[in-house]
């Protein structure tokens, strides 16, 4: 639970930035950052004000080859275009790209479930603070297929709603409420879905967000990449 009391909120934000929360608590804070501006500003306050403490760690020379490894990796990964407002949330983005290693396993699954002439994009969605792939989305000329890998269910009287933000777009766009089966197909392919787009799933009232924008916490997020 994210407290409403400003004092408690500030303590929680401070503990989050210090890093003393366990993975589950920290994940809850990360997810809430997307929809809670007070929490976001409290976290920014601590990140900025505690940062001088990092000078207590002595600088050290990274092992040789580190830059070369980075250089090789950025040739494959395009920078994401800027997005603003609701999505301008560093912590969510931090986690959007976590665990590319696990993508290999998902890719194998994707190959197993899709026809060879089909999709050309894939996205792996994870909870913001975890590495465990929870949803896989594949997309191509014929449309989009998203499927739960974890059998996760939304809370009672709530639903999972899928959102896309096109590269360069300022606004998430709803792709619809995901049926209880944990699988959804959309055809034709939504135009927002191309290389560099982001897919996210939020918790919304049954029937979807009343505002055309996410109103609940972002519980899964992932980047769309070309296969």
């Amino acid at each position: 639970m994210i407290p409403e009391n400003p004092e408690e909120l500030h303590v929680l934000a401070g503990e989050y930035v210090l890093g003393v929360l366990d993975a589950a608590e920290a994940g809850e804070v990360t997810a809430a950052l997307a929809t809670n501006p007070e929490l976001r500003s409290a976290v920014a306050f601590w990140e900025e004000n505690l940062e001088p403490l990092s000078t207590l760690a002595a600088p050290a020379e990274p092992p040789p080859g580190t830059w070369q490894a980075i250089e090789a990796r950025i040739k494959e990964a395009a920078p994401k275009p800027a997005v603003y407002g609701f999505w301008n949330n560093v912590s969510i983005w931090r986690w959007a790209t976590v665990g590319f290693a696990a993508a290999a396993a998902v890719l194998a699954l994707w190959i197993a479930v899709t026809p060879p002439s089909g999709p050309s994009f894939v996205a792996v969605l994870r909870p913001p603070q975890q590495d465990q792939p929870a949803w896989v989305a594949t997309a191509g000329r014929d449309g989009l297929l998203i499927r739960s890998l974890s059998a996760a269910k939304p809370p009672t009287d709530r639903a999972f709603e899928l959102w896309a933000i096109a590269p360069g777009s300022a606004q998430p766009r709803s792709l619809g409420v995901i049926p209880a089966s944990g699988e959804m197909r959309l055809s034709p392919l939504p135009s927002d879905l191309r290389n560099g787009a982001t897919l996210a799933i939020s918790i919304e009232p049954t029937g979807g967000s009343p505002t055309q924008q996410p109103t609940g916490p972002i519980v899964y997020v992932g980047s769309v990449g070309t296969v």
Partner: protein
Amino acid sequence: MDRIAALSSVGVLIEAVGRGSPAALKRLYELESRRLYGIALRIVRRPEVAADVLQDAFVQVWQNAAVFSDERGAGAAWLTGIVRFRALDAVRKLGREIPSDDPALGDEPIEPDVIERIGASTQAEALRRCLQLLDEGQQRCIVLAFVDGLSHSEITERIKAPLGSVKSWIRRGLLALRECLEQ
């Protein structure tokens, strides 16, 4: 070399990275990698893991720099945040040994004067002044959490104090710090 990369302000460089300049990323690495690697190593305590953290962090900077805005000149803090986040994540996944004041591993006994060694910027000056108002237990816990990335229970083990005390020192320390920093 591209002209953007000749600039040295960290925030300006991150913005250039956000526009897709690999030269700006390289310059950022030259300027910041020793500092950031030091931060990661102190938390994860294994050079190979720290190198992976640094690598992932720079790839992430490359991918996400476009969402950074240099409003408050907070580029260095943004980078520190990314590296600490990744290092803490690595520690939560891989585990590690609890630091034990071993100088060979870069550990230092937490002395009261450690606060004196916080860098020299205006912001550091404010933090130092405010930390000095805290009692010793509060100071030690906050430094161990931020710099060494220790969790509540790891701090408990490290300083041999009950969990309840550690939690309450951190809580009260944060409240006092905030009051002082906001003045």
